């Protein structure tokens, strides 16, 4: 009752009529609109973050800009946290998610993933002084994760004895690790590598745990038009060697020696 009252008092009336049709943003509609709205991270170097000049940069951002360019529209970035990537699509806040979004069976049910553009698996980072190298060392201990990540999902379902400390953002989780609020932190291994490069006191003790996984762009469930377009786009970018270039410019400077391009980029 109250909700309906609120809804009608907003400026909805004008947009409501067109909502049914725009609840999916087809490629046509995006082109007509002239902008594509893309969900990205704002605090996850080197994938999606904001540099000190205030510019959004990173591996995902370069891809996002390329996609916009190929669509001949302007990109509009919406910063999200891991746990609202799905809602951002479903509530039609964005057309596309390029926020380190790992493909999982659960997620496949609620959004449509395009062809993947990156490989990952879950890694665990811990202080060098007290390294965690096996999952068994985590039993009964606090492990830091971000809400809505595959790391959280993996430990919740497969390692129920690990106590999870769940944060909203990447900033918060890394700060928490530095404050020793948990014995280790689990997240996608690739940017754990990046992170430890600048944090000599920490090491990625478990390089990979759980299944190998892929990161892919996601669109709202049923948005066939954009999905197909994106699939083609990823293939064509791959053919052009875009992802290698992206890797070299955005990721390489952040990664240590232990990471090879083939660990990340899908050939």
């Amino acid at each position: 009752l109250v909700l309906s009252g609120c809804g009608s008092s907003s400026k909805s009336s004008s947009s409501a009529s067109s909502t049914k049709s725009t609840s999916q943003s087809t490629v046509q509609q995006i082109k007509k609109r002239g902008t594509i709205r893309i969900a990205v991270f704002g605090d996850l170097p080197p994938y999606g973050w904001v540099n000190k000049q205030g510019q959004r940069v990173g591996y995902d951002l370069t891809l996002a800009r390329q996609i916009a360019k190929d669509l001949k529209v302007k990109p509009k970035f919406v910063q999200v946290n891991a746990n609202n990537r799905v809602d951002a699509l479903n509530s039609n806040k964005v057309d596309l998610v390029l926020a380190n979004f790992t493909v999982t069976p659960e997620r496949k049910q609620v959004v449509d993933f395009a062809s993947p553009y990156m490989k990952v698996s879950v890694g665990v980072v811990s202080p060098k002084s007290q390294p965690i190298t096996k999952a068994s060392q985590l039993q009964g201990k606090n492990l830091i994760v971000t809400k809505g990540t595959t790391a959280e999902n993996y430990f919740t379902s497969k390692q129920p004895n690990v106590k999870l400390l769940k944060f909203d953002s990447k900033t918060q989780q890394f700060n928490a690790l530095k404050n020793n609020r948990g014995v280790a932190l689990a997240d996608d291994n690739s940017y754990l590598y990046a992170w430890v490069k600048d944090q000599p006191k920490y090491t990625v003790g478990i390089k990979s745990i759980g299944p190998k996984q892929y990161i892919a762009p996601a669109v709202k469930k049923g948005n066939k038009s954009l999905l197909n377009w994106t699939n083609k786009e990823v293939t064509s970018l791959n053919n052009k060697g875009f992802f290698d270039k992206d890797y070299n410019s955005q990721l390489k400077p952040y990664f240590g020696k232990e990471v090879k391009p083939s660990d990340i980029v899908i050939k």
Partner: protein
Amino acid sequence: MAHSGINVLFEGRNLIRLFGGLWTTVEIAAVALVLGLILGVVLGVLRTFPSRLLRFVLRLYLEFFRIIPTVVLLFLFYYILPKQMGVNLPANQVATLVFALWTAAEMSDIVRGALISVPKHQRESGMAIGLSRWQLYRYVLIPQAVSLELPATINLVTRVIKTTSLLMLISVMDVINVGQQVVEANNQKYPTGVFWVYGIIFVMYFVIDYPLSWWAKRMDKKRLERANG
């Protein structure tokens, strides 16, 4: 270490960006307050009308916004409403809307309280010279209620401004979200930067809210003095 940490603020455009974030915060708060206060006055007046049904509905509205934490309201409006109702607004507008509706709810209670505490004989002397209900509100009750309610209103304003800190949870690039970006981007270079970034945000909020609180307090004190003769 602590010395170098403060420099995080002067790296690149960090400080300017923080102020930019603050501006977003202030802008949302300001628009929401203007809309919310006006709507609140109207609802507050309606809540003093005799119609039981009207009063009940408005009371329900108030309690809804009172009981549900603002965090939850923001999520409801940002993610659920679009799916259920087909209403879709960008984050800043959702934030403005939520804060406006919330402000209106709280304001309606303040206004109602002030209206019913205008002495009864004021209402009656208005009626005795033949004023209609609308005239009674327009010339007698609302002007008097406004001065009664001003301190409470200012306090509401400070609360709204403080609560804008929750905007970071729905993709609004407010000062705290920018702060997190800054912290993350400069983490390795300035390990103590987190202290300074959150420190300056702390100060920013204080600098905005403190003068308002002070003003409200002073007015309350004056009124108390007047009441005590």
